[in-house]
């Protein structure tokens, strides 16, 4: 009964909430009107937008020593999660069943190593967030919920990996649905927002001849 709900109506609701929520969030950003800028451009806004997007992938030299943990753990987690989401064999099969599009999944050993590195990054990032007095002060319930929910989704996914128990697959899918419903209303939206956000900042400064 629960499995039918999870595979049926719960999935449909989660997909609609996620899709509409994400679209609404992105559109609402683009609908914001800035005051017209009549000043003479001193540089290219487009170049600034592209440059800022690329430069932000690299840590600022003067901050490297203070943010080494964030950089390493951040990349481990985000790249790992991306690889798990799009290249884990069960996910590739799922996408293929849903859309008809399939691609080569990563092998089992690569999945295990990727999952371990991803967990390593997520755990270190979240524990450091709680332990550091400044980030602890800046963090609110949303930050903690997002981290914990992501951890649970990854954990249930790895627990269901062997594929012998239907209950574990249903549990994983249910946690994914919870995450999808929560996603548009949380800072997890940065997955879609980081590129336009960097682009806006880069373009704004780029037009004024400043490297953002």
């Amino acid at each position, binding site marked *: 009964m629960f499995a039918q709900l999870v595979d049926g109506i719960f999935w449909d609701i989660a997909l609609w909430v996620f899709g509409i929520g994400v679209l609404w969030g992105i559109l609402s950003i683009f609908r914001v009107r800035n005051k017209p800028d009549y000043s003479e451009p001193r540089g290219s806004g487009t170049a600034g937008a592209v440059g800022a997007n690329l430069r932000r992938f690299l840590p600022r030299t003067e901050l490297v020593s203070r943010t080494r943990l964030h950089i390493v753990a951040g990349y481990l987690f985000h790249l790992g999660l991306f690889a798990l989401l799009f290249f884990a064999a069960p996910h590739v099969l799922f996408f293929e069943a849903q859309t008809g599009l399939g691609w080569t999944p990563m092998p089992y050993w690569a999945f*295990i190593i990727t999952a371990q590195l991803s967990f390593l990054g997520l755990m270190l990032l979240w524990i450091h967030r709680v*332990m550091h007095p400044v980030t602890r002060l800046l963090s609110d319930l949303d930050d903690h919920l997002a981290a914990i929910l992501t951890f649970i989704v990854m954990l249930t996914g790895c627990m269901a990996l062997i594929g012998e128990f239907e209950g*574990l697959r249903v549990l994983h899918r249910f946690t994914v649905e919870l995450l999808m419903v929560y996603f548009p209303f949380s800072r997890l939206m940065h997955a879609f927002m980081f590129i336009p956000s960097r682009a806006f900042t880069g373009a704004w400064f780029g037009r004024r001849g400043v490297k953002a």
Partner: protein
Amino acid sequence: MATQVQTANRHRRIIVWSLMLLIALMLFLPLIPYALAYVSPEAGGVPNPGTELWRAVRSGDKGTSQVQGVDTGVLINEYGEAWRHFRMEQLIPFGAMLMGSVLVLIVLFYLVSGPLRIPGGATGKKIQRFSVFERTTHWFTVSLFWLLALTGLILLYGRFVLIPVLGPEGFGLTASACKEAHNLFGPLFLVAILMMLLTFVKDNIYARGDITWLLKGGGMFGGGHVSAGRFNAGEKIWFWIAVLGGLVLSASGLVLDLAVFGQGREVMAISHVLHGIAALVVITVSFGHIYMGTAGVEGTISSMTNGYVDEAWAKSHHDRWYAEMQAAAGDDEAEQAGGGAAAGVASPVAND
């Protein structure tokens, strides 16, 4: 006529009885040597046809098999029975008794003596005991340790504790999930243990005064607090149990987890025994560590949550470390007064 009939009947009876005797002899005669061997084994001399075969099987000699792989030529691994016996008859019951008795002792100790208070009460003046990185390392290790401990204990004791609650199917699902999580997070524990080792080893080397601390039971015998540096002898012992136990757990776990390097069943069984013993010992000792860090000693838990302890706590439990910190703070102040301090260098002592 009657005589002929009688003769025919007698012949028939003789034939029937002869056949029955023959069958009886056929059935029982082969058993006589076994009966003799049973009554007097020394006089036997009549080998069981299967004896030699099973002796060879039990010796663990390798035969040949169509299946190619590690131990595929061994029909029965006799060591496996010894391992099974150890796991079921010793590891599981003695492990439960060890953990249970230590938990009961800790509860009794708390009920009898209560928490160890800060002498004279807290002053409100705080001193930094652990940096952000040290606390991150600690809680990262703690998270992995308990995730692995709980999943491991479910795998070890689940059939006794969880099957009555969840049923066989429910336990099967739970055990499968726990096994996957245990195997996945196990290698990360090695990373955590190495981080712990590198972060804390410099303050956990033997120092003068550690033996005295141990002889006085950390102040339980002889009265009063015993002098200690940043970590006392008890904390150092726990550190080395955790690190060495963690390394044994990681090494044996990797042997069990990555069964692709040609390790046979015997190596796996030995690894499992080491893994089980090390896990139960470290889990049991961790109960004491958790008690001392939370309910057992007032004012300790804050050192691992916000990084600070009360000055009175530091003075009473780690007087030598407190003196070092005060001296360092004094040096910084002197440098700042002389204009030589680097910008942003903060005193380790802070007020509430």
